[in-house]
């Protein structure tokens, strides 16, 4: 574990984020939404780690909690061997320089009252990366790097198209010269024709600046293209964690198999067996006992109802949390 930690850029251990549910006049806490419930993974430098799962499974919350946009309930996040969740204000400000985020919706991610140049420039000023004239130059440099033009820095967000805005959002994240970027569904709000451009941009930037991505997505075909490793989340828990090739070749968790069977294939003559899951995702405020997936699993066994499976390594190298793969003896 210690040797692995030294090589990893980000190590997340047993991260939990519970949102309290408040009811009544005195807003007493009557329960918790377990958005992230004990997630552990690590990311190597230069790698793209994809978190996938359907909406509400806690993948975005995981990304945001790692960056301390939400306060974690418990757990540990090490970034380059440094404790993120316990970092002081001053220390955190320095850490934020190298950990950035790209948001899902480029329409709400930019302040409509500030020119793009002012938005990015302010960040540079606060971190004392540049001053005076250098700010303008640096802003223009990152805009150009992200496929925009230098004069775009004078424009307001409403003067851009969705794809251009997402380029601005990426430019803003890049301005601080980060090593690690959480890409929180960076393309799901964009037109399909623009999606590939943004994906290419993210890949170019990764090559040019040795970036490490935590790529959050529900689009498995994009993940197949981008990711090095894939983590599948369901109801706040990681249910499968595998290298990309292994994951797409041989998914072990029944949920992963169902997800993969839903990817459309571009050849209509291929008949694919689709696994249709029954029912809805249970509420994370009241998750089922035992395996979180047992209410919808086609291979339900008795043990699944009572014992929560742990994430364990299977023979193929995939880590999976399922009693089918790791029968309890």
């Amino acid at each position, binding site marked *: 574990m210690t040797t692995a930690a030294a090589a990893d850029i980000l190590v997340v251990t047993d991260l939990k984020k519970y949102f309290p549910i408040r009811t009544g006049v005195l807003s007493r806490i009557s329960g918790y939404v377990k958005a992230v419930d004990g997630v552990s993974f690590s990311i190597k430098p230069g790698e793209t780690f994809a978190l996938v799962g359907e909406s509400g499974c806690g993948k975005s919350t995981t990304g945001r909690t790692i960056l301390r*946009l939400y306060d974690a309930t418990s757990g540990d996040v090490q970034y380059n061997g440094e404790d993120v969740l316990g970092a002081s204000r001053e220390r955190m400000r320095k850490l934020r320089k190298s950990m*950035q985020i790209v948001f899902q919706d480029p329409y*709400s991610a*930019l302040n409509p009252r500030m020119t793009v140049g002012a938005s990015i420039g302010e*960040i540079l000023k606060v971190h004392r990366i540049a001053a005076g004239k250098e700010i303008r130059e640096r802003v223009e440099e990152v805009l150009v790097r992200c496929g925009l033009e230098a004069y775009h820095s004078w424009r307001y967000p*409403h*003067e851009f198209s969705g794809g251009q805005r997402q380029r601005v959002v990426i430019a803003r994240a890049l301005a601080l010269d980060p090593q690690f970027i959480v890409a929180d569904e960076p393309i799901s709000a964009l037109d399909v024709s623009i999606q590939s451009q943004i994906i290419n941009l993210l890949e170019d930037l990764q090559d040019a600046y040795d970036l490490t991505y935590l790529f959050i997505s529900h689009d498995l075909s994009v993940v197949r293209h981008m990711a090095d490793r894939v983590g599948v989340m369901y109801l706040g828990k990681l249910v499968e964690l595998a290298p990309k090739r292994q994951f797409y070749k041989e998914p072990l968790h029944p949920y992963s198999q169902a997800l993969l069977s839903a990817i459309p294939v571009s050849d209509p003559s291929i008949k694919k067996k689709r696994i249709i899951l029954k029912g809805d995702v249970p509420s994370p405020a009241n998750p089922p006992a035992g395996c979180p997936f047992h209410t919808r699993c086609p291979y339900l066994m008795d043990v699944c109802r009572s014992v929560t499976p742990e994430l364990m390594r299977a023979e193929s190298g995939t880590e999976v949390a399922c009693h089918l793969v790791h029968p309890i003896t």
Partner: protein
Amino acid sequence: MQATDIKAASLMPRKKTSEFKEVTRHLIKNRAAVAGLVIIGVFILASLFAPVFATHDPLRTELGNRLQPPTREHILGTDELGRDLFSRMLYGGRISLNIGIISVIIGLTFGVPIGAVSGYFGGKLDIFTQRFIDIMIAFPGILLAIVIVTVLGVGVENVMIATGIASVPIYARLVRGSVLAIKEQSYVDAAHAAGLGDIRIIFRQIIPNCLAPIIVQSTFQIATSILWAAGLGFLGLGAQAPTPEWGAILSNGRAYIRTAHHLTTYPGLAILFMVLGFNLVGDGLRDALDPKTR
């Protein structure tokens, strides 16, 4: 989102005034708002140039000429001490406008930061502030102003402070509501992720985005403050004799309403039109600033 016109797509950097221009364009298309602007403009000019337009010294008494109805000499007649009503009303307009504007400035300087901090940080601080504001809002504004004037003492300056303080809770509540909505936007998260401080986020990211309701409320609040001040003047808590103030003139004229109705009619109409003017502009601004009604 407005459709970008050809100019927006051109390669020239655009000027910063685009938003301002847009709002002005919509305001001018609105007839009621233009009427309001004209009314306010007339009152502002009359107040600015009161010494030029005044036909008499507003304070000079002429006991031989008491309670004269409007004549060529005295356009709006004279009051119970023979002072020229037209001149007194010109100077009175200065006081009313001053009270309206200064009380709004006071309300803004305290109400906006209180509301912004309360909404932004939330938690216990928010609960405490909001309950305190509940108590203040529970009193009608004019009553609150009366209480404050009673504590501070009568006089024009104290009326400004009192109406200003009475409008603080209104701003605080309004701004808090807007901040609650805006702080959930991802650009605020982005500012956090970029390591910007809370104070900077409040003043650079959040407050500029809730300016529209603040501007609209301010035009309405000028009208309300003028009305409150006239009320206080009417009750004898505002400007003291012989200062010409509309509410006070109205109050003094009340005794002669059967014999010399011009002493109540004209100040009453002046208050009515000034308040109407600001309200019309406020309505127009609300529509012009809201992208949905454009």
